[in-house]
């Protein structure tokens, strides 16, 4: 009996390592195949990401509360350290803002009157959904966040995500209860924008650094450091005029933009549902041949 068991072990051990090796080769092959597939057919992966995001939402929601309170503790300590300087700065800012408030009220009244004179077609009102950031892309590969609102809350692929500071990014995939937002700093983010002062159009292209660059600017474009950048509304997905950022550096080859959004305090985002009148909702549009929904 004992000899038999010994022999069995003699056979079983190499067999086990053989299976392990086989599993390794199989899994590496699977990983590479999935990567190529996800590159060629992003749609397949989008659905899977949506489903996994939905499943993980309750867990991440639960866990992100302590993470957020830890962060707010760090913030509070930070704030307590320079409360006096902050107070002086805010008082100065407040005085300035009050002045601007009076100006804005007057201009908006005047704007209203002029619009009435000219019979301007009003822009469609965007409805919106505000959701909490429950997951971050913890790593150097992409700049995305997961929010706890999805198709059930009217969040759809392509919609713009903003905070009170400015444009954050756009929805790239939506599950039932969760959606992924591609931040405008991501390598794959392309947003049609316009330079406010000169009305120059450009595409804001992310490259995973904190400062996305302006692409497709006209050769003789007048862009200067400090110019405001807003969405142009081209393509009809984003409402025009959403604040994006300011030009932070201009050189021969490129102009970089500093977004308004403070990425470190991205706790809530608002997703805008903006559909141009005359545009059919996506579900009612004719799909391309061979396109599945």
């Amino acid at each position, binding site marked *: 009996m004992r000899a038999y068991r010994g022999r069995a072990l003699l056979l079983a051990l190499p067999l086990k390592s053989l299976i*392990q090796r086989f*599993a*390794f080769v199989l*899994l*590496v092959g*699977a*990983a*590479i*195949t*999935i*990567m190529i597939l*996800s*590159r060629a057919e992003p749609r397949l*992966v989008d659905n*899977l*990401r949506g489903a*996994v*995001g939905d499943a*993980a939402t309750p*867990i*991440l929601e639960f*866990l*992100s509360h302590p*993470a*957020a309170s*830890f*962060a*707010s503790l*760090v*913030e509070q300590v930070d704030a307590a350290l320079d409360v006096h300087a902050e107070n002086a700065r805010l008082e100065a800012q407040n005085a300035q803002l009050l002045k601007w408030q009076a100006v804005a009220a007057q201009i908006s009244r005047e704007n209203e009157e002029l619009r009435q004179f000219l019979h301007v077609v009003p822009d469609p009102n965007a409805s919106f959904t505000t959701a909490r*950031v*429950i*997951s*971050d*892309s*913890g*790593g*150097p*590969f*992409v*700049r*995305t*966040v*997961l929010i706890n609102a999805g198709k059930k809350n009217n969040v759809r692929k392509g919609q713009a995500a903003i905070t009170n500071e400015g444009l954050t990014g756009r929805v790239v995939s939506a599950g039932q209860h969760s959606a*992924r937002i591609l931040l405008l700093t991501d*390598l*794959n983010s392309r947003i049609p924008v316009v330079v406010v002062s000169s009305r120059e159009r450009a595409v804001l292209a992310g*490259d*995973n*650094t*904190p400062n996305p660059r302006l692409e497709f600017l006209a050769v003789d474009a007048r862009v200067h450091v400090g110019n405001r950048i807003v969405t142009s509304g081209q393509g009809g997905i984003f409402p025009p005029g959403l604040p994006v950022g300011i030009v932070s550096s201009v050189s021969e080859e490129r102009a970089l933009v500093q977004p308004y959004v403070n*990425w*470190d*305090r*991205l*706790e809530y985002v608002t997703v805008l549902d903006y559909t141009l009148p005359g545009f059919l909702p996506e579900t009612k549009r004719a799909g391309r041949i061979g396109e599945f929904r």
Partner: protein
Amino acid sequence: MRAATWFERTDIQLRGLTPFVFTLLMVLASALPWHLPSFAPVTPAFTAMAIYYWSIYRPDKLPYAATFSLAMLLDLLTGTPLGLSALVYLLLQVILNTQRTFFHGKPFLVVWWGFSLVMPGVALVSWIIASLYFNALVPPMPFIIQAVLTILLYPLFAVVLSALHRHMIKDQ
């Protein structure tokens, strides 16, 4: 030796799940929004620490299939190209499987030194694959900072991991 009761057997089996559960928690930790200044792109590779530890001490409790599925979950949750972490961590594990006995019974500094050797490799391979995938040069700096942070944080996690490990093998 008396036969183990049902309770004892279940207990041992549950303890055996420790490596998997801990690595799963590390995956979730990577996905959480920490809201720390400039932290998101350089969030330490928590998962890599867990895989390194368990591949050296208990590879039987973290088979390739477990690493694969945990890494896929990590990619799905963080929005990383799907399959990238799976590929990188499988390669990490297969290398560790050939070298693991070297670390047995060695002082902690040697294990840490080993980690500081493999982490730059993980970062380099990840960076190459990501650049190929996106067909663009991904900025390498966050990869380097992430690797350095991960190496610096490893001793902290090793304390937790070895405590868990001791708890796991107690009574076995």
